[in-house]
C-alpha cells in the first residue's frame, strides 16, 4: 500500500503525498462549481455594521468604546474573555471607521442562532485606519511574540469552532508538536471559501502556515487538501515552490474527497494515522490543526499587522444570480450580501447558514456575519427537498457504514427513543460529531442527528440536575451540621449559665463550673472536632 502511495506521489510531484483510507463517510453532490466561477470579491463598506461581541457560551465582555464614540478602522472595540480550559481574551476590532450608534442584542450568523450582544457601527465611508505595524521578518520573532501578536489581532478558528488561535499555540507549548496540519479539506457541499482562498492567495496561506509552524515549534507542516480541487492544488504547489517558502518545509497531502474528511479527528487519522482518544486534545498527541482561513488570518496579523476584521464567506444557492465568494467585513448583515449577489426575493424559500449537511436555517436575513460564518445559502423552493415522512428504521446499517466515528446510529436511535441513558453512553452518543452522514443515507428518512441532539440535551440536563442535587445536598447537610453544632453550644451554655447564680450549691459546683470553663476554653476545638465526628459517625451509620 505504501509503495502504491509512493508511486502516486512520484506521479503527482515529489511534494504530494496521498493519505490513508478514511473511516466511513459519504460522497454527496458537491454543488461547488457555481460559487467558484468568479473570483473572490471584497465587499463594499456597508452603511451599518453589526459587530458581534457576545461570547456564545458565557464569558465576560469588556467594552473599550462607548455609544456615540468615533472609532477608526482596526481600533479595538471590546475584549471577550472566554472561560474554556483557562481564560482567553479575544479582542474585537472595528472593521471600518465610523460612529458607534448602539450596543444591543441581535441575531448573529452562527450555529447557536441565539441573540448576542452586538456593537452597531454607522460607517462614515472614509475608512480611516490606524497605523499598522507589519512584521516583515517574522522569522525573527519568538514563539511568545507571535502568540501575543495573534492574540492581539483577535484571530480565532475560522473553520467554525472559533477556538482562539493563540490559545491553541499555548496548548502547543505544553507538549512537543510533531505535526502541524493545515486543514484545507472543505468537504461539505456548497462551501468553497477555503478553496477560493487557496486558488487566489495560496502564497499567503503558505506563509501563514510557516508562521504557525514556527510558533507551534512543529516538526512537520502538512497541508491536507482533497484530490478533487485541482486549481487549489496547483496554486498550492506553485506557492510551495516559490521564493517565499524558502525552507520548503510544508508538505502537501492529498486526501480522498469524502464528507466529513475535514473533521478534525478524522482528518488527523487520515493524514497521520494517529487516532486521538476521546476526551484528549490533539496537542496531547503532538498534533495541532489550523484551518486555511486561520492560516491566512495569521499571515495578515503578523506580516501585514492587520487585525482580523474580515473573513471569506461563500454565497451560493439557486436563488442568487451570481454566487461567489466574498471577503466580508465582520458585522455585515446577510441581506447586504444577498443583494450584492442579486437575489430574487420573490421565491426564496429559506436561507441556510453553513453547508447543506451541517448547516442550520438562518433565523433572520438581518443576521450579522461573525468570524466563523463560512457559508450562506439562499435556497430556492425546489433546491432542497422538503423532508420526507419518516418511516420505520429497518436496521439496514447504511448509517453505521458511513459513520466517521464508527458509531451504530441505528442502535442509538432505538435507545434514544426509549431514553436509555446507560446504553446511549455505552454506545458513544457523545462521540457523535453530528456530521449528518447517517441522515444523508437513511432510506427511512429518519432525522437521526436531530434525535441525537435531543438526547444529548436530555442527558446534559440530567447531568446538570445531578450536579445541582449533589451541591444542594451538601449545603443541606452542612446546615444540619451547623444547626446541630449551634444547638450543642447552646446546651452547653445553658448548663453553664444557671450554675452561676446558685452559689449555695457550694464549692463543688463552682469547681465543676470552673472545670467546664476550663475545658471549654482549652478544648473548645477538640469538642467541635468530637461533635463533627459524632455527626459524621451517625450519618455514616444512617447511610449504611
Amino acid at each position, binding site marked *: 500500500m505504501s509503495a502504491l502511495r509512493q508511486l502516486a506521489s512520484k506521479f503527482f510531484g515529489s511534494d504530494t503525498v496521498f493519505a490513508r483510507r478514511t473511516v466511513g463517510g459519504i460522497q454527496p453532490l458537491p454543488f461547488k462549481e457555481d460559487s467558484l466561477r468568479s473570483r473572490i470579491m471584497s465587499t463594499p463598506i456597508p452603511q451599518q455594521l453589526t459587530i458581534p461581541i457576545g461570547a456564545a*457560551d*458565557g464569558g465576560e465582555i469588556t467594552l473599550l468604546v462607548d455609544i456615540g464614540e468615533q472609532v477608526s478602522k482596526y481600533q479595538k472595540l471590546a475584549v471577550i474573555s472566554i472561560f474554556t*480550559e483557562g481564560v482567553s481574551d479575544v479582542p474585537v476590532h472595528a472593521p471600518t471607521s465610523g460612529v458607534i450608534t448602539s450596543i444591543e442584542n441581535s441575531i448573529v450568523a452562527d450555529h447557536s442562532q441565539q441573540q448576542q450582544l452586538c456593537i452597531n457601527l454607522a460607517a462614515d465611508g472614509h475608512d480611516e485606519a490606524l497605523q499598522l505595524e507589519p512584521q516583515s521578518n517574522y522569522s525573527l520573532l519568538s514563539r511568545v511574540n507571535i502568540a501575543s501578536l495573534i492574540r492581539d489581532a483577535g484571530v480565532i478558528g475560522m473553520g467554525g469552532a472559533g477556538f482562539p488561535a493563540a490559545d491553541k499555540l499555548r496548548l502547543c507549548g505544553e507538549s512537543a508538536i510533531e505535526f502541524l496540519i493545515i486543514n484545507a479539506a472543505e468537504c461539505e457541499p456548497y462551501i468553497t471559501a477555503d478553496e477560493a482562498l487557496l486558488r487566489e492567495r495560496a502564497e499567503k496561506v503558505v506563509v501563514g502556515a510557516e508562521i504557525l509552524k514556527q510558533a507551534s515549534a512543529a516538526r512537520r507542516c502538512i497541508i491536507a487538501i482533497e484530490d478533487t480541487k485541482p486549481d487549489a492544488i496547483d496554486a498550492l504547489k506553485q506557492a510551495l515552490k516559490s521564493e517565499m517558502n524558502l525552507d520548503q518545509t510544508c508538505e502537501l497531502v492529498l486526501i480522498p474527497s469524502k464528507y466529513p474528511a475535514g473533521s478534525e479527528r478524522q482528518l488527523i487519522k487520515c493524514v497521520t494515522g494517529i487516532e486521538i482518544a476521546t476526551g484528549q486534545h490533539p496537542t496531547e498527541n503532538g498534533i495541532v490543526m489550523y*484551518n486555511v482561513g486561520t492560516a491566512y488570518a495569521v499571515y495578515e496579523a503578523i506580516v501585514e499587522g492587520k487585525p482580523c476584521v474580515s473573513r471569506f464567506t461563500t454565497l451560493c444557492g439557486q436563488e442568487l444570480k451570481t454566487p461567489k465568494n466574498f471577503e466580508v467585513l465582520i458585522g455585515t448583515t446577510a441581506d447586504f450580501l444577498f443583494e450584492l449577489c442579486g437575489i430574487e426575493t420573490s421565491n426564496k424559500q429559506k436561507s441556510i447558514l453553513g453547508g447543506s449537511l451541517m448547516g442550520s436555517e438562518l433565523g433572520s436575513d438581518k443576521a450579522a456575519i461573525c468570524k466563523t460564518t463560512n457559508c450562506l445559502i439562499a435556497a430556492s423552493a425546489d433546491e432542497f427537498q422538503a423532508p420526507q415522512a419518516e418511516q420505520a428504521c429497518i436496521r439496514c446499517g447504511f448509517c453505521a457504514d458511513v459513520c466517521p466515528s464508527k458509531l451504530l446510529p441505528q442502535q442509538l436511535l432505538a435507545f434514544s427513543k426509549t431514553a436509555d441513558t446507560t446504553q446511549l453512553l455505552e454506545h458513544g452518543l457523545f462521540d457523535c460529531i453530528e456530521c449528518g452522514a447517517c441522515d444523508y443515507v437513511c432510506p427511512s428518512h429518519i432525522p437521526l442527528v436531530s434525535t441525537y441532539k435531543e438526547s444529548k440535551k436530555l442527558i446534559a440536563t440530567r447531568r446538570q440536575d445531578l450536579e445541582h442535587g449533589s451541591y444542594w445536598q451538601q*449545603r443541606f447537610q452542612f*446546615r444540619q451540621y451547623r444547626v446541630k453544632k449551634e444547638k450543642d453550644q447552646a446546651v452547653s451554655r445553658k448548663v453553664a449559665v444557671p450554675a452561676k447564680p446558685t452559689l449555695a450549691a457550694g464549692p463543688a459546683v463552682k469547681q465543676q463550673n470552673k472545670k467546664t470553663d476550663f475545658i471549654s476554653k482549652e478544648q473548645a476545638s477538640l469538642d467541635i472536632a468530637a461533635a463533627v465526628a459524632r455527626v459524621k459517625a451517625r450519618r455514616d451509620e444512617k447511610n449504611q
Partner: protein
Amino acid sequence: MLPVISHWLTQLVIGSSLLLITAFALLKLNRYLRQQLTIQKSLVKRINRALPQTQCGQCGHPGCLPYARSISLGEASNKCPPGGHETILELAELLNEPVRGLDPAHGEFRNFSVAVIREDECIGCTKCIQACPVDAILGGPKLMHTVIASECTGCDLCVEPCPVDCIDMINQLAPSLPQTTTPYFNSLSSPWVNS
C-alpha cells in the same frame, strides 16, 4: 485414519465450544450478580439520586435523604412535587413499581422557581434565614435580607414564615450553579469543526 480424525475433531470442536460458551455465560452471570448486589446495597443512594434535592420537606421528611431512606423501607414514592413527573417515573422504574400520579396531599407540580426577597419591604426578622434548608439567604437581625439566587433550590420554605410577605417565587428555566460552566457543556454547542 481420516474418519477417526474427523470423529475426534468433531468431539473436540463441539466440546470446547460448549465449554467456552458455558465459561463465558458464567462470567457474565457472575458480573451481573455482583452488579445486582451493589445495586441492592446502594438502593438508598440511587433513590436519593433520583430525588431533586430541593430539601423542601413537602414529602413530610426533613430533607431528601431521609425520604429516600423511607422509600427504600417501603414508603410510597409519589410524594415529591418538585421532582415533577420525571422523578416519579424514575423512582417507579427503580423500585419496579407501577407508575402512580403525584399524591395530592403533598402539593402539586410546579416549574422551577427561585425565591426573591423584595428588599424594600424586608424588616430583617431572620425568620426566612432559619427556614432555609440550604443557607441560601443572607442577612442579619434588623438588617435587610437577600436570597443568593445561585444557591436557592426553589423549595418554597421561606415564603410562609415571612411576616410581611415580601418573598416571591420567580419562575426560572433552569437552576444555575455558582461556578462557570464546565468545558464539557461548551463542547455540546460546537460539535466538530474544521478547527
